[in-house]
């Protein structure tokens, strides 16, 4: 099947490739590791495999130094991520997550930038119970992390519920059909009997093979005019084309991704590029063939160059398209026109088709918790108890209480009011358009704060906004604790990447609709300098902007920063 013109990069396979190869289809020594009683941790090798099961080991970095002095091991705990295509959760599922987070987790839920639940702080001996409860709620954590196709994103579209229902079905189908086939998950967590004889590998993992993918692989489906899921940040993006109120098909975009490494210009964020169009029923075929191209030609030697975007850039977009068509056995249609307005969320009540109502609420940093005087978690639990529709997690870490009947609307509005969940109006446009990854204390990769710090920084920027009459202006601002970019900082009008405690690289110039990457404006600066720079820029913006001009466009027109026209010139 392999194309003779194309080839994978040489070099010795990375250690992760060895771990996968020796793992017997993602089992490794996890069963024994999880029972070992003297440590709450597991070995590095097993932790690599753990990702494929939707989890990995972290430690509370706030406690690292003192714990070491106390002769305690790092405060080991697991992060567990749910696979929940399109971010749709039934009220019963919400209640299960809520309970598990409080019983086994750290008492909070994180709504991720990829529309799912993440729990932190789960101890090793509670993992099995937690995963089993999730399974009983008809969700799972399979392939929520690791070198496989991840949870599939999908616009939660509260305006066109019928379109949403259809697109959502496709996202579910993609997510389910692209799952690994190994029974390791069921054996390890759900007590399924181990299969006596190992079947032939092609039967076992017909698509992935025993080595799975070189890196993670992300798919998302956008429904214009909303680009909330940042379709260009995906390895494989689909843009729904609606004709005459009906889903006609999808434009196909390939080779996007946010991650990079500090100081390495061979790594960069990249936008997916539209290569054609397919019909809805062809979507699985397209995805499968794209994945096998990455499986065969992705870089298995250098992990930081292993994402599909580098494969596409190395092989050439046209060559990848040709290879895809060759593997499909048919030719892609030409892409259809589409238009995006923004990549954010619209808040408050809206009426969808039929008589159903949808309420989109802002969740700061995506963190569901009870705070002093603000019982967000309790309020949502009370709503989940009476809600008859569903919950939709947005790609901006927000929440939609969807499909509310007119009869229920009053009751839910009352609960929203009682728990203070309706007061989004008090937030500035900047805060409502903010996003932050988890970072400290649990993320092992974070170099600086993100979720815990961005709200504080916004408090201070709001002073500048108020002085310039920009309080209600929607400007996207995203902060991420490391260059891997979980908060998609490179698609934000104001972006920050952590460099060191209290120090960030500052990025400007991304498009409001997620169609243009940003560029670094200042390197390694602290709060004082951030505020000084933004003070100057926002003041100029208030005075000099054209009507309807977004901040990201303004800084380019004003010559503050050059436009990044492609990931390959992100560092120029």
């Amino acid at each position: 099947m392999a194309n003779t013109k194309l080839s994978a990069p040489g070099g010795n396979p990375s250690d992760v490739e060895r771990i996968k190869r020796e793992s017997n289809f993602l089992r490794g020594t996890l069963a024994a590791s999880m029972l070992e009683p003297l440590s709450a941790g597991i070995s590095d090798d097993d932790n690599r495999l753990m990702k494929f099961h939707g989890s990995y080991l972290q430690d509370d970095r706030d406690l690292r130094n003192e714990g070491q002095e106390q002769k305690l091991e790092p405060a080991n705990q697991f992060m567990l991520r749910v696979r929940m295509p399109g971010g749709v959760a039934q009220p019963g599922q919400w209640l299960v997550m809520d309970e598990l987070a409080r019983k086994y987790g750290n008492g909070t839920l994180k709504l991720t930038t990829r529309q799912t639940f993440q729990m932190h702080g789960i101890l090793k001996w509670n993992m099995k119970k937690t995963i089993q409860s999730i399974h009983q709620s008809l969700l799972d954590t399979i392939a929520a992390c690791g070198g496989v196709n991840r949870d599939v994103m999908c616009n939660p579209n509260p305006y066109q519920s019928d379109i949403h229902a259809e697109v959502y079905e496709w996202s579910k189908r993609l997510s389910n059909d692209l799952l690994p086939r190994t029974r390791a998950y069921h054996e390890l967590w759900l007590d399924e009997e181990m299969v006596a004889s190992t079947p032939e590998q092609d039967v076992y993992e017909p698509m992935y093979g025993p080595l799975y993918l070189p890196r993670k692989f992300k798919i998302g489906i956008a429904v214009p005019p909303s680009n909330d899921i940042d379709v260009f940040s995906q390895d494989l993006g689909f843009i729904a084309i609606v004709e005459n109120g009906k889903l006609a098909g999808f434009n196909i975009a390939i080779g996007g991704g946010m991650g990079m490494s500090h100081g390495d210009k061979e790594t960069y964020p990249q936008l997916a590029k539209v290569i054609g169009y397919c019909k809805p029923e062809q979507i699985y075929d397209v995805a499968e063939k794209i994945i096998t191209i990455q499986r065969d030609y992705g870089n298995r030697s250098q992990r930081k160059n292993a994402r599909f975007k580098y494969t596409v850039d190395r092989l050439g977009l046209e060559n990848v398209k040709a290879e895809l068509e060759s593997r499909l056995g048919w030719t892609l249609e030409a892409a259809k026109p589409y238009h995006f307005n923004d990549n954010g969320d619209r808040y408050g009540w809206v009426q969808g088709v039929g008589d159903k109502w949808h309420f989109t609420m802002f969740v700061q940093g995506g963190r569901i918790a009870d705070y002093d005087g603000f019982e967000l978690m309790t309020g949502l639990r009370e709503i989940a108890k009476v809600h008859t529709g569903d919950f939709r997690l947005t790609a901006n870490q927000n929440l939609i209480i969807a499909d509310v009947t007119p009869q229920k609307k009053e009751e839910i509005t009352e609960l929203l009011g009682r728990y203070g969940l309706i007061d989004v109006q008090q937030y500035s446009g900047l805060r409502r358009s903010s996003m932050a990854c988890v970072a400290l204390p649990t993320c092992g990769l974070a170099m600086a704060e993100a979720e815990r710090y961005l709200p504080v920084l916004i408090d201070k920027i709001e002073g500048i906004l108020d002085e310039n009459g920009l309080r209600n202006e929607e400007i996207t601002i995203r902060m991420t604790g490391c260059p891997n970019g979980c908060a998609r900082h490179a698609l934000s009008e104001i972006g920050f990447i952590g460099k060191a405690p209290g120090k960030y690289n500052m990025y400007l110039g991304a498009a409001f609709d997620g169609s243009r990457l940003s560029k670094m404006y200042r390197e390694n600066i602290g709060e004082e300098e951030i505020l000084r720079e933004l003070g100057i820029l926002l003041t100029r913006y208030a005075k000099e902007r054209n009507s309807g001009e977004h901040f990201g466009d303004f800084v380019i027109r004003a010559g503050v920063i050059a436009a990044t026209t492609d990931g390959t010139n992100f560092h120029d």
Partner: protein
Amino acid sequence: MQLQATNSPFSQEQADLLNQLLPALNDAQKIWLSGYLAAAASAQASAPAAVPSATSPAAAPASKEVTILYGSQSGNGHGISKKAAKMLEEKGFHVTLSSMSDFKTNQLKKVEQLLVVVSTHGEGEPPDNAISFHEFLHSKRAPRLEGVKYSVLSLGDSSYEQYCQTGKEFDARLEALGATRFHDRVDCDVDFEEPTKAWLEGVLARLTEAQGGGGSAAAPVTAPAVAGPVAPSAPAVESAYSRTNPFEAEVLANINLNGRGSNKETRHLELSLEGSGLVYKPGDALGIYPHNDPELVDLLLAETKWDPQAEVVINKQGDKRPLREALIEYLEVTVLTKALLEKLAPLATNPDLAQLTAAGNEAAVKAYVKGRDLLDFVRDYGPLQGTAQDAVSHLRKIPVRLYSIASSQTANPDEVHLTIGAVRYDAFGRARKGVCSTQTAERLEVGDKIAVYVQPNNHFKLPEDPNTPIIMVGPGTGIAPFRSFMQEREETGAQGPSWLFFGDQHFTTDFLYQTEWQRWIKDGVLTRMDVAFSRDTDEKVYVQHRMRQHSKELYEWLDKGAVFYVCGDMKNMAKDVHQTLAEIISAEGGKSLEEAEAYLAEMKKSHRYQRDVY
């Protein structure tokens, strides 16, 4: 004491020579000499005793054989017994020194002069190495002891209801068996030095009288026959520091071992022994002279309106200190006892006290004193009449606190480490604090000094054979001696398998010395470890549950000669562990529970079941 022909077996000429020589000898020389003479004597065991012929038979009528039996938990009883043996040997007596558990009971009838030194534990129970002897003596198998003369020294703590109970029982039982009490029993409180000294002097005087005085009996001096005298211990250079002359040790580190969010606070204390000459072995304890909490003392002073600066007498020697200092550094204020209440009663003005102490109200008094302290008493029944001195004269010296040592001196030549759990709780409307543990937790900083001495514990020792397997059960601060064991075995390269059971409340915050155990497991110094965290699961899991889970292997280890150690809480843990152990031996060894108990008794006897419980 000056030797004379009348009070010794020597002629006056010999006595004069000895009187010249003896005061010039240092301790090491005395020990050497006594060993030399003993060895010379036993070498001639079959020959007639080389007793100076000048000795008049009439001047030495009674036997010179003295048997000292001790029952000791913390090692104090053992220490006193050794001291008594040394003193008696210096006076020419032949001493057989043995722990009660090591003593062959069929020899009891042959004993002529018996000294019993025994402590009391918990609710009036004998210490571990006295249990079997205590049982034997109170059983029908106990022989009549008409020929035995005896005296008892009992050690205890008057804050317990059953004060010195075991000593009292031995005293009464020996009398009931027909033995003659040649010197009255002395009961010692935690501050035992002075009464012990008085008892020893009294015993020596009576024994010496029997030797020389009156010439009533005419028994000839017999040569040492069966039991050999105590061999002189290796004449190591002894430290100048001791219980009576504690060493001021500098704090090198003081760490809370419990992570954030724990219900507990366990301090890891590292002290410098540099220059002290103090020597300890794994299993030994360290005695600390603690200070009272100044805040508590200030509350007491505020309540009593006593002048903090007033000079008060703090001991029998008449030393004086300002009152506040005396209450912080010398006198016990945190324990109210029935005895103290009775002594203070005449000073109390509150008429309710008369009601409490009225005849027939013993149970109420007992209930009242339990868990209360001097401040409670003053608040409830004060003000007190008279001067501060009138009241504080009745206070005991602050008792020493003993902690099992958590380090090996082989691994840390100039240091000693302790594992101290901070005791804090609320009672009777006030926060209460353990004296020494919260001093360590709250008021002892790196660079500070604290008075310490080494308290040997010969009943909690690693097996001599480094290849012997060991099983260690040490939940909570009971882990301390096992850290010492592991350091020692690592340092000496001992190859014997080892198995540790540890437990506490929560894995994440209370796994004491976690990274050290992980390393010892990885390096193979520790063979296996099982842990029980009682509050991490719905059902509470303790060390005994882990033992039961592995009962088959555990019994195999025992069967192969493993030594079983338990350290920690006596009331619940050690009892449950013992019960579980008996059940495991019964189930896995196909024995009845009685046989299992006998198996354990035999293990105790052969020092394969050792406990350091408190």
